[in-house]
């Protein structure tokens, strides 16, 4: 089973939808420990992506992901822009020329995407950032590979791992990003970036459930 080019387009559309629906929620999370714009930022970025996507819809998956990345970089701004931009750029690099991805391809793409986020933002696990949702998702995928699960199952499990990672951020004290200015006062709040990361990975799981 594979993720085909059109599946990735569907996923991007699902991301745009879910971020639009959750824009207010993400913004509220960000208002608590940041500056109250994360939902707005992601929504603006994925709106721009949706306008850009038709231009590359007939290209390979690498081009599609890279276009998403470039668009996010030039429209989101803030911390999330370079991070999610790098995420999709790196995923795109690993998918260059591909018209479909098997589970290993997707693992390599996601691994590279998350490594890009870590390189760009220098956050470690436990810093209360999107990395805390993204990293467990990669680990989960690796295990699923070892366990020979289907893509659909594997991606659902990786989304669940992201969700757990997101929830884990709640009690933590932030050490990166705007929330770190709060010190102890950041504890007790869920990280908005970890939340958007979970939403994006859950959108993949929902879209590719039958892959």
């Amino acid at each position, binding site marked *: 089973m594979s993720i085909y080019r059109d599946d990735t387009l569907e996923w991007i559309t699902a991301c745009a939808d879910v971020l639009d629906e959750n824009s207010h929620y993400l913004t509220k999370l960000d208002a608590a420990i940041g500056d*109250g714009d994360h939902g707005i930022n992601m929504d603006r970025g994925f709106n721009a992506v949706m306008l850009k996507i038709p231009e590359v819809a007939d290209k390979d998956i690498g081009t599609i992901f890279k276009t998403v990345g470039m668009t996010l970089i030039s429209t989101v701004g803030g911390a999330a822009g370079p991070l999610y931009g790098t995420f999709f750029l790196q995923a795109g690099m690993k998918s260059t020329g591909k018209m479909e991805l098997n589970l290993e391809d997707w693992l390599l793409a996601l691994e590279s995407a998350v490594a890009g986020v870590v390189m760009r933002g220098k956050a470690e696990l436990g810093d209360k950032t999107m990395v805390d949702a993204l990293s467990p998702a990669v680990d989960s995928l690796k295990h699923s590979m070892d366990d020979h699960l289907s893509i659909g199952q594997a991606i659902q499990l990786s989304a669940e791992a992201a969700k757990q990672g997101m929830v884990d951020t709640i009690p933590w004290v932030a050490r990166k990003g705007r929330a770190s200015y709060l010190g102890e006062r950041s504890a007790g709040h869920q990280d908005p970036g970890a939340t958007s990361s979970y939403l994006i990975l859950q959108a993949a799981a929902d879209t590719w459930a039958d892959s």
Partner: protein
Amino acid sequence: MKKFINDPEMVVVEELEGVALAHPDLVKVHFDPNYVVRADAPVQGKVGIISGGGSGHEPMHGGFVGYGMLDAACPGAVFTSPTPDQMLEATKAVDGGAGVLHIVKNYTGDIMNFEMAADLAKAEGMQVESVVIDDDVAVQDSLWTAGRRGVGSTVLAEKLCGAAAELGRSLSEVTDVCIKVKNMGRSMGMALTSCTVPHAGEPTFDLPEDEMEIGVGIHGEPGRARLPLKPADEIVEMLMEPIVSDLPYKAGDEVLLFVNSMGGTPLIELYIAYRKAYQICEQHGIKVVRNLIGSYITSLEMAGVSITLLKMDEDMLKLWDHPVLTPGLRWGK
């Protein structure tokens, strides 16, 4: 939300249109990507100076573009750092052959976006230096966190570096001026009310009638502590103590004292704050040799005050006094 705006989506663009109509003698406004650039850019042989950040802090940074200060400013969405393409295009537009300095406020987003822009500009053969301003003592500094926020010192760095560039100094010399400001400036702010991001439509935080937020950030980030509202003099003490003891500023030091409104606090209250801040300097034997009082680095309509001390030397005094001609700061020209 009560704002004098049309569509929240259009706030930044319409503001920039207003700037373009108001100051064609001083600046040009480029749209898509958005940046404000000196009308006479690039100035050949002069180091170009660029800053940028989220909108909502006006006059910073767009209001500081012009002779003796910035060559270009990159405004992001409200409270959201701009994107690398803005900084890249602005860098190209102001490069007069002597290199370009990026003055960056220490926020993860600003850092990363400016970093990407600088990488791209360098890849295109331009000479780019970056200095990160991180003067907010409200935030605990540590290698393990994002570090201190960049606030009031940024305005002063833009002024001093702008003068240095105007005097024909090299990129490394102008960069040194910026590093000096970064090292010698400390700030802290507080809020009486929250601001409302136009797009969000509701206040970023709730602050009861009898409380204040000490150490608030310029994006309405919560601060050190939420405390019962106090008389102005006590609040100024709460801001000055961490500032003075941090560098520390010492007896005999000469400083610039910058008392800033967060947007909604009127001048009459700023002078009350200035009075007390000055007296505290006097008590410490610190000599206030220059000042700046007004709304220069704001947080939309937030009511509140921030204070910045910058330790000055002879060269910095000369650079401060150098003429400046921008929409937001103007003297000697």
